[in-house]
């Protein structure tokens, strides 16, 4: 096909009125960029790096989210300092478990989706609106999930209308469930949930909520081989995000080291940890 006299002109899809959704726009204009629209070869399971444990817990005035740093591929540690907790926008964070490559692509798409809406509409999406957008992206990924490439995120944010932190969990079919108080996803989540149940209290101050989240990650790493605990030798700490009315912030390494050292000290001669 030869280039016509309007080569270089923005295609009609750019100029069409209506949608404020970036995903809808690229779904119509450049579907190959959507992770869920890629054809997969039939059959044949293969190994791809997996991300593991994410925990989230509310506190007085917000919510914390923490993730371990390990990615595994079968019995191999694929990556020891991977980030699995991301700021989705100014007031929400998303943590990922499942096939790392697809999960990170989904998070990237989700971040652009939220910023795109903000710029086109000049307003922030409601927290439920954000949670539902993420659900529709997970739903679109069902075909991949059925071939073993599933992604299960955990979404936490500060609700500006209710002035509180809220947590949303997902299943592979795109089901979105609001969780009360605390939740965990990923291979170590069974152990992390046990720890959260015993340690979490209503209206914790933020410092204690952070330490509860780190304890839960520690317990998950203790009993799940795919979850990485704090690596003192390499100075790799779990990533911890705090979301409150000031927005999302990630704890810097020196603050994290203090929390982790406290947790490790508390376990000397007492492997069950805080109670």
């Amino acid at each position, binding site marked *: 096909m030869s280039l016509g006299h309007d080569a270089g*002109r*923005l295609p009609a899809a750019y*100029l069409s009125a209506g949608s404020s959704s970036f995903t809808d726009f690229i779904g119509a204009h450049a579907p190959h960029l959507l992770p869920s629209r890629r054809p997969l070869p039939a059959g044949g399971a293969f190994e791809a790096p997996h991300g593991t444990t994410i925990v989230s817990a509310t506190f007085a005035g917000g919510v914390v989210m923490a993730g371990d740093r390990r990615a595994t591929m079968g019995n191999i540690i694929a990556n020891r300092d991977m980030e699995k907790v991301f700021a989705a926008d100014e007031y929400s964070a998303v943590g990922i478990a499942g096939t790392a490559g697809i999960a990170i692509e989904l998070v990237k798409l989700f*971040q652009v989706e939220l910023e795109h809406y903000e710029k086109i509409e000049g307003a922030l999406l409601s927290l439920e609106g954000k949670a539902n957008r993420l659900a529709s992206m997970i739903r679109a990924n069902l075909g991949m999930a059925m071939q073993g490439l599933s992604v299960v995120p955990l979404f936490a944010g500060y609700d500006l209308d209710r002035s509180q932190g809220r947590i949303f969990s997902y299943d592979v079919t795109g089901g979105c469930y609001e969780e009360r108080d605390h939740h965990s996803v990923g291979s170590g989540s069974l152990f992390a949930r046990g720890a959260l149940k015993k340690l979490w209290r209503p209206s914790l101050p933020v410092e204690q909520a952070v330490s509860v989240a780190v304890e839960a990650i520690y317990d998950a790493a203790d009993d799940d081989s795919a979850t990485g605990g704090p690596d003192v030798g390499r100075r790799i700490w779990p990533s911890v995000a705090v979301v409150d009315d000031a927005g999302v912030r*990630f704890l810097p390494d020196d603050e994290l080291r203090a929390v982790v050292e406290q947790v490790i000290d508390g376990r000397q001669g007492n492997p069950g940890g805080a109670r």
Partner: protein
Amino acid sequence: MTSMPFYVSPEQLMKDRADFARKGIARGRSVVVLGYDRGIAFVAENPSRALHKVSEIYDRIAFAAVGKYNEFENLRVAGVRYADLRGYSYDRIDVTARGLANAYAQTLGAVFTQESKPYEVEIVVAEVGAGPDDDQIYRLTYDGSVADEHGFVAMGGAGEQIESALKERWRPGMSLADALSLAVELLGKDPAGGANRSLTPTQLEVAVLDRERPRRTFRRLGGTLLTALLNSEDPTRDAPTVDETAPGHHDTLTGETPRDAATNPQTQNPRTDEGPRG
């Protein structure tokens, strides 16, 4: 019968279209875009808080327009889609004003020659650089012509008069307060030679691309901050580089709930800034 009754020469056809577009643009109020020491400022006379003439396109790129609202709004949305798609498929630093200005130029040019009516708009695409010499300001007109402007642009009904005054009075390295006061004074001049109006902050839409900010550099200015910047007796000469503490959408700096720079979440997050942000 739909046959052409008369022969119309191409020159005449283009001239008629250009006159038509120019008339439409001249009816609107003007917009001034001008550089200052720390970025690029946008000043429009616009009493509406919701229908914007100045908008964010991407991290360091903004858009300003005069003319028919539905037409430039259409171009603005197309620009945001272009920038976000490019940033998503390459990287955030690969989104440039030059690329966007080219796409707009092709689009406006094609509409001008092929569609039944040209767009009655004039737009500016500006990108703030690391220093004042790296700032880029592109002006695009209804027929798709592009001009690479230095320092300032004025568009709309009184555009030419404002621009000739800016040639005399604009200097590189002006403070934000001086640049805004100059733009507001010139916007208040009557092009027909009548009495000058003094525009109040509520009649103005003001925004900046602030080169000192990380990531998204576009912020609107309003409230007591804008009043202070426009008041020559007030010591405020510049906008803060951190957002305010009031929870909510931080697209506007009002000066009403200032925040200590050390607690700004946007700058306190060096690690995730390297994350997979589109």
